[in-house]
């Protein structure tokens, strides 16, 4: 397991290569890259700033990676979440999953992203022409995360 919080950018290809490194049991690698967009609700965004609760963020992400590894037969998981100021077009978050079969790699990557969105202690603030504002949590993200507890109730926290 590799879960990191950092201000600097990440290299998707290098992270995926590190999981594959010399192995021939991996059949599927999924990467998810979350990117800062330049407009929200029609208003331009100059940048976002991500505040976080460092010790808890590290603990929460590690717990969810461990939970993903319990649910699916994974051969590697990497999560990198940036914090600080991030400009449009730049990376925010990376999830890489490796498994023998594609369904496991896809499911684990989606699970991790849904949980990062709703449970990992990060807060986005947007710089807009009308001023700076905290991003409001999206109900669709809560619904997306809830499907994993519905599916496997014993894993609910």
């Amino acid at each position, binding site marked *: 397991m590799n879960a990191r919080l950092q201000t600097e950018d990440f290299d998707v290809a290098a992270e995926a290569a590190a999981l594959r490194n010399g192995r021939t049991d991996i059949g599927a690698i999924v990467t998810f890259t*979350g990117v800062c967009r330049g407009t929200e609700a029609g208003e331009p965004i100059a940048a976002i700033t*991500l*505040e*976080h*609760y460092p*010790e*808890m*963020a590290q*603990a*929460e992400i590690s717990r969810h990676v461990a939970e993903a590894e319990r649910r699916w037969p994974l051969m590697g998981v990497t999560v990198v*979440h940036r914090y600080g100021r991030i400009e449009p077009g730049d990376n*925010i*978050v990376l999830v890489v999953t490796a498994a023998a079969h594609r369904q496991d790699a896809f499911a684990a990557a989606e699970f991790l*992203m849904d949980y*990062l*969105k*709703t*449970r*990992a*202690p*990060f*807060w*986005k*603030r947007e710089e807009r022409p009308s001023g700076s504002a*905290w*991003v*409001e*949590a*999206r109900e669709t*993200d809560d619904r997306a995360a809830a499907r994993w507890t519905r599916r496997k109730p014993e894993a609910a*926290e």
Partner: protein
Amino acid sequence: MSVKVLYFAWVRERIGKAQEEIEPPAGVATVGELMHWLAGRGEEYASAFANPRVIRAAIDRTHVPPETRIGQANEIAFFPPMTGG
């Protein structure tokens, strides 16, 4: 007994500080009661906890619902719904 309290995002901004040591009175047993007590400490706290149902809490870096007892907590955090990822 004193406990470290952390605030994040707009909770931090409204209160005007990121953390403090507090000593809640004996009647404050749960996280929800702590929010209520904090809200009475002044305007900035009242503003931060005006709608306690939207505030999330963590005890010792684990999410907890408001009815959770504070017990021997070392660190309690209050923050808005998360928007990472």
